[in-house]
């Protein structure tokens, strides 16, 4: 048995040279911080591909009729755009990057409960991504069903669906493993004295999220398996010709995919709940209420899936049950918004970059949320279902929610992760272009949807032209902002000013370790006393 080598305490996780050399020191590393960066870089690459697809779609829609592509290509584009953005970016998003990096540090641990399983999660994630890419590059045609893979078209389409379905299944497995790891980590590895109600809100958000990842993902897993079996063997479960019901597919699909949006938004809200007290230099308002809201959203969110299916032919009983539950699930989100704003009230506001992202998050999230109520009410849903209104809603709430929170989080935790500060002037400029571009891109879609423009069509009636031009211009402004943000973050990793341990005067444990942290995070595991806790100002 070889003698174990002690890990030095004065070497940052970035510089540490262990058993493996060079790139292998990264792709074989079980250090949660390195795994977080592996996720960050792979996700950023896939995100840029997804953005390019989105920009191509917007370019097609700049004028009625065929602009740069025909309907088949457009269908393929929105399918792959959706699969990448949903399964590879916003669902893993904050947990995989910031959960992996910050969770152990924030609870005073050296790593997650199962570090090797953590690395396996990333391998599984990459495998899933490669499978989806394979479905695009090889076979009889790029999948064109939409990321929702609705039956019966999903088992009738001649396009290369099996690798895409298999890829989505594998990506779900990565999600499950991460959720499992985080639940055990939070249960077993909190520092001495850190009771459940002294744990910061980002770990709480990750906890609620992990339960959804665990319990909802398997349902879409088996549903995708059934679609694959339907394609290969014709078992009949979703085929009307054999007695199957396509609406049952929708039920099973949305039983996962609705809770999935809470997997997306809860960690985002958790990050906002970290940024706002720090930049208000004030204790969070309603700490326990935010926890209760987090758990309530996670729980009630399991039971609202039918609001994606109001026009599918469900019974009236199911329709109004889902509608009522949808309105109920909106309440805890509203409680959180109220608490964030109350935190800022009479706080000592530091309007630095993370704060800008947090406040603009609240703005776009609320717009997205209100539009959700329009969609949740039966009478109005019938009118805007499958129109551009829905597209606007989910981009405001998912891209606005997860996206803005992700950018806020990266600008908040960047000095801790990389030991340097980014250029703040450029960060502000990037934010401004992104925010204005975002609003210009998506706001017209609310109007277009109400006027009757369908979604997932490569063409539209001439009266929708002006609003579409505005929207496409917005996409370019937003992309420009994105480029500025990314270049700034990249350059600052090498050239930025050395960052101190606690540049924002935060009061959670990550700000007590060096920037960047050493491999095992803490010299000594911290102990929380009676008076200790997060956000104590």
């Amino acid at each position, binding site marked *: 048995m070889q003698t*174990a080598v002690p890990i030095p305490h004065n070497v940052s996780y970035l510089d540490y040279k262990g058993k493996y050399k060079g790139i292998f020191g990264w792709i074989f590393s079980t250090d949660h911080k390195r795994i977080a960066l592996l996720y960050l870089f792979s996700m950023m690459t896939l995100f840029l591909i997804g953005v390019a697809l989105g920009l191509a779609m917007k370019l097609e829609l700049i004028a009625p009729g065929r602009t740069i592509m025909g309907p088949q290509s457009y269908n393929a584009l929105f399918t792959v755009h959706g699969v990448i953005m949903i399964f590879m970016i916003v669902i893993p998003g904050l947990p995989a990057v910031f959960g992996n990096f910050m969770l152990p540090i924030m609870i005073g641990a050296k790593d997650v409960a199962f570090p090797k399983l953590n690395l396996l999660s990333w391998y599984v994630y990459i495998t899933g991504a490669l499978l989806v890419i394979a479905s695009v590059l090889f076979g009889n045609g790029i999948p064109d069903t939409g990321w929702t893979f609705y039956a019966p078209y999903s088992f009738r389409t001649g396009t290369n669906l099996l690798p895409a379905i298999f890829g989505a299944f594998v990506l779900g497995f990565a999600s499950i493993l991460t959720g499992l790891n985080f639940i055990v980590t939070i249960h077993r590895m909190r520092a001495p004295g850190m009771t459940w109600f002294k744990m910061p809100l980002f770990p709480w958000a990750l906890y609620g999220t992990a339960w959804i990842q665990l319990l909802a993902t398997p349902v879409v897993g088996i549903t995708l398996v059934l679609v694959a079996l339907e394609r290969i063997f014709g*078992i009949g479960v979703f085929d009307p010709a054999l007695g199957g019901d396509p609406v049952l597919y929708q039920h099973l699909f949305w039983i996962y995919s609705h809770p999935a949006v809470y997997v997306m938004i809860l960690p985002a809200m958790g990050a906002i709940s970290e940024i706002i007290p720090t930049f208000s230099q004030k204790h969070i308002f309603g700490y326990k209420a935010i926890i209760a809201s987090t758990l309530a959203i996670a729980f009630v969110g399991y039971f609202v899936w039918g609001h994606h299916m109001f026009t599918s032919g469900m019974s009236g009983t199911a329709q109004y049950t889902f509608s009522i539950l949808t309105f109920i699930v909106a309440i805890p989100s509203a409680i959180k918004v109220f608490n964030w704003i109350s935190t800022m009230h009479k706080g000592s506001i530091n309007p630095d970059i993370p704060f800008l992202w947090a406040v603009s998050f609240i703005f776009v999230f609320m717009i997205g949320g209100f539009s959700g109520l329009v969609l949740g009410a039966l009478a109005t849903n019938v009118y805007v279902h499958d129109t551009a209104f829905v597209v606007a809603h989910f981009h405001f709430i998912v891209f606005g929610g997860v996206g803005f929170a992700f950018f806020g989080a990266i600008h908040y935790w960047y000095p801790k992760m990389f030991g340097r500060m980014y250029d703040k002037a450029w960060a502000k400029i990037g934010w401004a272009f992104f925010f204005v571009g975002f609003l210009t891109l998506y706001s017209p879609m609310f109007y277009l949807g109400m006027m009757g423009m369908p979604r997932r069509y490569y063409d539209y009636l001439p009266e929708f032209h002006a609003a579409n031009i505005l929207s496409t211009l917005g996409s370019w402004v937003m992309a420009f902002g994105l480029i500025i943000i990314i270049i700034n973050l990249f350059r600052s990793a090498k050239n930025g000013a050395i960052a101190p341990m606690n540049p924002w005067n935060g009061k959670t444990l990550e700000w007590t370790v060096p920037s960047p942290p050493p491999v095992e995070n803490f010299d000594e595991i911290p102990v929380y006393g009676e008076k200790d806790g997060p956000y104590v100002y």
Partner: protein
Amino acid sequence: MEQIIQHSEAHYDPEGAKLGMWLFIFTELLLFGGLFIVYSIYRFRNPEAFRLGGEELNLTIGAINTIILLVSSMTIAMSTSALQLKNKRLTIVLITITLLLATVFLINKYFEWGLKIKHGIYPGSAHMLNDFSQGEILFFGLYFVMTGLHALHIIIGMIVILAALYKVQKGTVNADRPSLLDNAGLYWHLVDLIWIFLFPLFYLIH
């Protein structure tokens, strides 16, 4: 500070490992749960066809397989006690019996399926499409998918148990470090639990 070691070996947390296995079991429950939802809807919509389909299945083989799995659950549970009592030989005997019973289950399944396929009853078969009602087609589609997925989990369970057997043999799984065997047992009980529900839903419709 000399007791710092590579963190992947740093701490043995049997409670954490057990919790991890239970969480994984929950995902399996929901995975099969999705299939149970599909079954329940289609049985509700096609009660007569499901009854006809159920009568095509061999109750005796189904019951024997049920008993086999129940006994195998007992033997692996016993093996965890044997490990705690430091009776290595008995532990190994009990684990081996579990694996043998699992093998018999799979052999039974192989013959059951073989018989059905020989009679032209399998997903996509011409016989089913021509002669069976929609409800019966759905019944047998679900039968093959659910028992097939279950059989896959039996195989996975056997592999995990085999890994535990190897380590018990080597001595690295013992009364002080029983987690791998305990958790392999948990997984095996899950496989048994699923069959406890599959058996009446497919074989006991009269």
